[in-house]
């Protein structure tokens, strides 16, 4: 379905990002998966997918640094000729209540989760505009809708993505480019599994379906939004959360 297409997935070698990489690659796209730290696991992820016949490359870079984003985008363009899809998935958490949250904790999360999407979008945008087509999907979170104790930085960054995406969608609506958000609930990734068991049980208790989502359940929504047929969907927020945000 995506044969000949090229996707960039930031944070694309772990968690939800790895599921997105896998799903797009298995649909025929070449996926350039970004990672910042952990070269070995990133390369292992790529090797595993390649062994299954997928076309995947991994690219080290920091999304909180615009120059680094531009460097990676240029590298992908040089090696693979085009970028059709940008999935801004890279995210970090540094959880503390506001009283204990340092300014650095705040900035570090904002810089990756929110500025990262801005940097990557900016780096790839002229190319997409020139080609008159592109799909951008930003991965937000149910926490961006609801807030969460101990996540002032994370919730602000994820809510910020809603505004950023909508402005981007408006500015690009007549240029063949769509920009949308996928907002997952609690998904069974390392990030969520790092939550202490008692706290996780409390989280699950609040999810109407009483279960965590699987990374692939998020990836399939991303893939749907990237499809050619989804061109009338822009500026939208598609939630996948087992009913958590109602």
């Amino acid at each position: 379905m995506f044969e000949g297409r090229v996707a960039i997935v930031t944070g694309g070698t772990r968690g939800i990002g790895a599921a997105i990489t896998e799903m797009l690659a298995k649909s025929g796209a070449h996926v350039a998966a970004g990672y910042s730290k952990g070269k070995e696991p990133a390369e292992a992820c790529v090797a595993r997918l390649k062994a299954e016949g997928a076309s995947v490359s991994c690219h080290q870079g920091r999304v909180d640094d615009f120059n680094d984003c531009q460097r990676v985008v240029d590298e992908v363009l040089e090696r693979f000729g085009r970028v059709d899809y940008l999935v801004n998935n890279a995210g970090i958490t540094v959880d503390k209540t506001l009283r204990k949250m340092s300014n650095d904790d705040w900035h570090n999360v904002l810089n990756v989760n929110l500025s990262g999407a801005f940097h990557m979008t900016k780096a790839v945008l002229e190319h997409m505009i020139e080609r008159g087509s592109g799909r951008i999907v930003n991965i937000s979170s149910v926490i961006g809708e609801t807030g969460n104790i101990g996540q002032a930085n994370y919730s602000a960054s994820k809510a910020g993505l809603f505004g950023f995406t909508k402005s981007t969608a408006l500015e690009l609506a007549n240029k063949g480019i769509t920009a949308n958000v996928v907002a997952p609930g609690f998904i069974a990734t390392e990030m969520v599994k790092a939550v202490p068991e008692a706290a996780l049980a409390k989280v699950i208790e609040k999810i109407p379906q009483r279960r965590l989502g699987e990374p692939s359940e998020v990836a399939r929504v991303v893939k749907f939004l990237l499809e050619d047929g989804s061109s009338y969907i822009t500026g939208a927020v598609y939630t996948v959360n087992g009913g958590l945000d109602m």
Partner: protein
Amino acid sequence: MTLRSLAGRVAIVTGGSRGIGGAISRSLAADGAIVAVVGVAPDRERTAELRASLNGSAKLVHFYEADVADYPQCEAAVRNVIDDHGRVDILVNNAGITKDHTIRKMTVEEWKAVLDVNLSGPFFMMKAVLEHMIERKYGRIVNISSVVGHTGNFGQSNYAAAKAGLLGLTKTVALETARAGITVNAVAPGFTATEMVKLMPQAAIDVAKSRTPQDRLGEPDEIGRVVRFLIDEGSSFITGATYDVNGGMFM
């Protein structure tokens, strides 16, 4: 999209003979579902036309006459579908009408008629099918709302109220059925190239387009594919959501 086949599934699509509903029926039948179109008398002929336009899947489409504004008729239609086909896995509440007037000129009858079909209709249909779905621990319900439910629209106080009400109804039923293997979601289309929209005065259509950042109307198939996605087996973690498809008209 690599979705799972719908072979063996039975879907009810209200107002499924034309417009967005017709695109939904076509897409579900194309993937193998038995489609029970529920509609009022004139929809029988329209369903025959829809069937004639289908190739291999024509025999999967059936018509059941019922006015969704009337609860006993909804119950009877659901019972007949289950009697004929053994089950209902999917319900798409798509039937909708417009009776546009500014509130100053809108009659109480116009208000009530639109609420009865567009909002009470989905309530009645869900109520009629829910026990069956709960027993079988499986169901996919999609309610077709509208961008007008988010934004309001000049001359559509009844329609906007019904479509906004549908979002509240969707979330509540989603909560109530979250642990029963049933998902309930809304799709909110923007202005879509159907007869309903084509009936609008040209000036109003131009205004709608100019308010759409992509500067075009949507096509029924562009809505149908979102419904198809949500009713897929793989969409089980999506419930209580509203998926907008509007060319950027409402963000």
